[in-house]
């Protein structure tokens, strides 16, 4: 089924794109991550121009996170106050990301920056996750398991001035911490075309020390609004959002997400996390390897 993408200026097999969307949808349903870290590179690999791929992937993540936010919101799993502070930071971060994007593009290093960021971030998050999941899966040695670590936010967070109460998260901390976290993730969304859930979730747990039952919902809430802002920013500046590509990806991902959610209920969460860690590390290894291997194309053309 040939579909012509009017912004990407190219004809693609629609079924491949729907399938790609479904794959990321299943991942998001299974693991609660957006799957942007897979969509963007795979789209580029398929021949879609990198800017169009990143912009359209961000728009797709908006759609994929809607049903998640609604579901978590219904059962009280979203700390709206915390989420809104992060969104404010995220929108600011998206603006910073756009400036960085333009700067690195003008000196021709945007691809390298994106690849190195991927390797660095996915590599560290992947190995953290793998270690944590492995410890949970492995039968406890010498009888009794270690007592659960007491939840506590990072010392640096406690040192920040100004304190707000976040009832949903069970925290009394400075709003500057989630704001900064939002800025970082927003910049990454704009730069890499990812939702940032794979960084947000561990950061909320281990740096902010939020209670686990609101982490995924609040992360999705943040992603929902930040990807909206990113879409608008791309629409206004790069004109790279391809609505046909977005529709195809969404069609696959919203269906895939439901499937993933149903499959997820059949497995233990530790095994799921271990599987996700394996996928993340695999992608990292591929990208790391790619940095050192002579690329297929030595020359690239960009419009002036």
């Amino acid at each position, binding site marked *: 089924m040939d579909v012509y993408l009017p912004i990407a200026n190219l004809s693609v097999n629609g079924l491949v794109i729907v399938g790609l969307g479904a794959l990321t949808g299943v991942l998001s349903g299974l693991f609660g991550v957006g799957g942007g870290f897979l969509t963007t590179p795979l789209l580029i690999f398929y021949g879609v121009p990198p800017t169009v791929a990143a912009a359209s992937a961000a728009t797709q993540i908006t759609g994929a996170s809607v049903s998640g936010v609604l579901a978590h919101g219904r059962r009280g799993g979203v700390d709206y106050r915390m989420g809104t502070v992060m969104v404010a930071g995220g929108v600011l971060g998206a603006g910073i990301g756009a400036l960085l994007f333009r700067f690195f593009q003008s000196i021709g290093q945007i691809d390298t920056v994106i690849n190195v960021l991927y390797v660095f971030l996915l590599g560290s998050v992947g190995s953290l996750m793998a270690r944590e999941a492995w410890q949970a899966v492995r039968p406890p040695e010498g009888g009794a398991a270690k007592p659960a670590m007491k939840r506590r936010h990072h010392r640096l967070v406690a040192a920040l001035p100004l304190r707000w109460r976040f009832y949903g998260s069970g925290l009394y901390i400075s709003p500057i911490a989630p704001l900064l976290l939002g800025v970082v993730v927003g910049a990454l969304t704009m730069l890499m075309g990812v939702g940032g859930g794979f960084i947000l979730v561990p950061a909320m747990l281990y740096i902010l020390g939020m209670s686990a039952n609101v982490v995924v919902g609040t992360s999705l809430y943040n992603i929902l609004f930040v990807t909206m802002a990113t879409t608008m920013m791309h629409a206004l500046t790069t004109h790279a959002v391809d609505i046909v590509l977005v529709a195809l990806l969404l069609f696959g991902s919203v269906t895939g997400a439901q499937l993933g959610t149903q499959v997820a209920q059949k497995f233990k969460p530790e095994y799921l996390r271990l599987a996700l860690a394996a996928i993340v590390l695999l992608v990292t290894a591929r990208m790391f390897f790619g940095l050192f291997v*002579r690329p297929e194309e030595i020359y690239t053309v960009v419009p002036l």
Partner: protein
Amino acid sequence: MKRLFLLVALLMLSAQRDPILVPEVSQDDVQVQQGFTGTELLLFGVILDPTGARAGEDYDIVVVLKGPTEPITVREKARVGGIWVNADSTAFQSAPSFFAVASSRPIEEIVDERTAAIYELGLGYLQLSPTGAIDPEEQTRFTAGLVDLRSRQGLYKEDPSGVQISEQVLYQVRISLPSNVQTGTYTAETFAITRGRVIASAIAEVEVRKVGFERFVEVFSERQSLFYGFLAVFLSVGMGWVAGRLFALI
């Protein structure tokens, strides 16, 4: 059109014995829309004596189909500290987005290098208007890189035996446009060459444009960016919400 008129006038004034080329293209309007996977153009025409009779001599025909030119930057990757990054770059002011040369015999058998360079007959003679003072050797390297890249994308091509001439009168050539072609005005220039000299040339134009929904989307995203952005957000939120509701029912 003006050029064509001048050319005809010139032909009438000066060279009584030089033949006239009458070029034609199978499709002067290529419409890019849903289902467009590229197209094949048939460029054909006749070579006539000014009196209207067949020219009756062996001519070589070269057809150059050229897409709209654009300013581009070409970057070259190199190994820096173990990893591959973009290192050198150069700018070309007039790189054609599409360039196909077809001839009845290999170009080097038809004309000398100088003539080929003047008429841009071949990928080796592209006039790219490089900017900045870069040494010629580097320039050649970047040009070769660009030509190689675009050749593999199907955007630049050379076919040394693509033009068929029947009975010294009718010539025809097929050139395919891939789906990733740029929209704009394409020019098809036909040259009749004998004894290393270009004795007649003619231009036909082909318009490649998006139509219908595809054109609407492109124009909408450029001119009404704000609303286009809202529409994209609305679409994705809407689809996500509807899907969530639908699956909740099942």
